[in-house]
């Protein structure tokens, strides 16, 4: 049995549906389509699937998926909480299960009709007690309001500007403009559009917020040995980590000593400790972008720059193709699709296969991260 997860497993297949504001099929049907596509991509029969991992917010249970696609006896299944913070953790759980012999073919997925379905914050009856009691009566209703609070403080402390946030939005949009599958394909963004757009929660404007998307994605994880016999070049799970910092407070992190150093810092310490390379060796990054300010905060947390330097890091085209750290090369949650970050994982796989629509030449290492500000997770992929 493996004593480390390092390169013990690999992503052998990826699959997805189309992305749109409204798709006609149910979340369950979309989930099955993405999973069947991922299995076909890997060249593995559905009957061989014996492990599942998804998000606690996923509405389609593994029972429904397993019986629909025709999985065999399933011996490992797991769900991870905290919304988009769980994306990479689904891989962590499957990798641990496969490396320790609890399963052999794992499927991770996310299906969501966030484009045509309800906005979760409109539900005033099902709320976590902590934010419901201490924030919502005061009109901090939406994730955008909660992150905007941290953003204004971040700008105040470190001199980050709206131009820095625009750099993030622009890099994602430029990559989406190259990706026919992206919701924002052929829809360029200009600085003038950004600066004159409507506010959502000051200091965040429309273009600081992710898309609302219907769609589903999946990937298939197997042992490194098995992956070498599959259809595509294996993309190894080199290091993977979850992060829940001391004194963190769930979905709204206002109450620890330092709210601007979030769960990314915790996940990063574990991630790099287990890795053979460091931030300077990352060829391309897929960083969770429900909101533009999560990028500078995550750049700091994962060690690409120092504390307070995340805004300045975005200058000079650093996040664009050919820059210091090409970012969200399919368009990310801001401009490809917002499916709780799962599209960041599949784009990381495409980059290391060499099949991205915004390919970084020779990319051999990729960081993928999950939601920052909430209990999070991250994975380092390598060829």
């Amino acid at each position, binding site marked *: 049995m493996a004593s480390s997860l390092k390169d013990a497993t690999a992503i052998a297949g990826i699959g997805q549906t189309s992305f749109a504001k409204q798709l006609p099929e149910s979340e369950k049907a979309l989930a099955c389509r993405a999973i069947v596509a991922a299995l076909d991509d890997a060249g593995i029969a559905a009957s061989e699937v014996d492990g599942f991992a998804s998000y606690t917010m996923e509405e389609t249970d593994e029972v429904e998926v397993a019986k629909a696609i025709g999985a065999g006896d399933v011996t490992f299944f797991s769900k991870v909480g905290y919304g988009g913070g769980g994306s990479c953790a689904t891989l962590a759980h499957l990798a641990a299960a496969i490396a320790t012999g609890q399963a052999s073919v794992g499927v991770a997925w996310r299906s969501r009709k966030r484009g045509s379905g309800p*906005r979760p914050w*409109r539900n*005033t009856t099902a*709320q976590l*007690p*902590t934010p*419901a*009691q*201490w*924030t*919502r*009566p*005061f*009109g*901090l*209703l*939406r994730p*955008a*309001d909660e992150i*905007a*609070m*941290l953003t*204004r*403080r971040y700008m*105040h402390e470190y001199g980050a500007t709206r131009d820095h946030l625009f750099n993030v939005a622009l890099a994602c949009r430029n990559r989406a403009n190259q990706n026919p599958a992206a919701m924002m394909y052929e829809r360029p963004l200009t600085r003038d559009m950004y600066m004159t757009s*409507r*506010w*959502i*929660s*000051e*200091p965040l404007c429309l273009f600081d917020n992710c898309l609302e998307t219907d769609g589903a994605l999946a990937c298939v994880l197997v042992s490194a040995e098995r992956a070498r016999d599959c259809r595509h070049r294996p993309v190894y799970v080199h290091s993977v980590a979850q992060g829940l910092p001391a*004194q963190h*407070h769930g979905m709204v992190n*206002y*109450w620890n*000593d330092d709210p601007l150093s979030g769960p990314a810092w915790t996940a990063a310490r574990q991630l790099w400790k287990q890795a053979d390379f460091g931030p300077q060796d990352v060829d391309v990054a897929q960083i969770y972008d429900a909101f533009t300010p999560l990028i500078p905060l995550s750049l700091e947390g994962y060690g690409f720059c120092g504390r307070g330097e995340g805004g300045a890091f975005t200058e000079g085209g650093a996040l664009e193709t050919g820059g210091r750290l090409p970012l969200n090369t399919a368009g990310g949650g801001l401009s490809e699709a917002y499916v709780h970050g799962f599209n960041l994982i599949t784009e990381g796989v495409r980059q290391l296969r060499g099949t991205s629509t915004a390919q970084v030449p020779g990319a051999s290492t990729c960081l993928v991260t999950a939601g920052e500000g909430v209990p999070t997770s991250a994975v380092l992929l390598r060829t």
Partner: protein
Amino acid sequence: MADAKTDPLLTPVVDDDGTPFWEYAAQGELRIQACGNEACAELRWPPRPCCPHCQSFATEWRRMTGKARIWSYVVPHPPLLPAYAALAPYNAVLVELTDAPRIRLAGNVVTEAGEPPDSVPPDRLRIGARVQVAFAERDGFAIPQWVLERS
């Protein structure tokens, strides 16, 4: 259709740990949970069953002066729940207590107790501005609000 009349401003969804805060608030007192172990006595927020510093389950609620400074603030715009959309743009702030700077409370800055969250123009708000707590009645709850100190 839900509107601002049938769908009013939200009241707190109180849990066991938070109940004393709202009971003291109803008496006009701002109290924060603290460790009841005298050798520790650390404040903690939000409230929880035991002390993260010494693991004591002894608890007290310590009276605060109600003085605070704005740590950050936002100005939400629609789409929002109907009662909040009717007020937008309004302010929502996070203040840190002068007595205990790492204890932060969310709230609204208002002109005086009982006034709505849009009563102070956002351009009058600054990070670091001094505020004082005031309580306003909302559907049986005493809701903490924050009034700018005259400078």
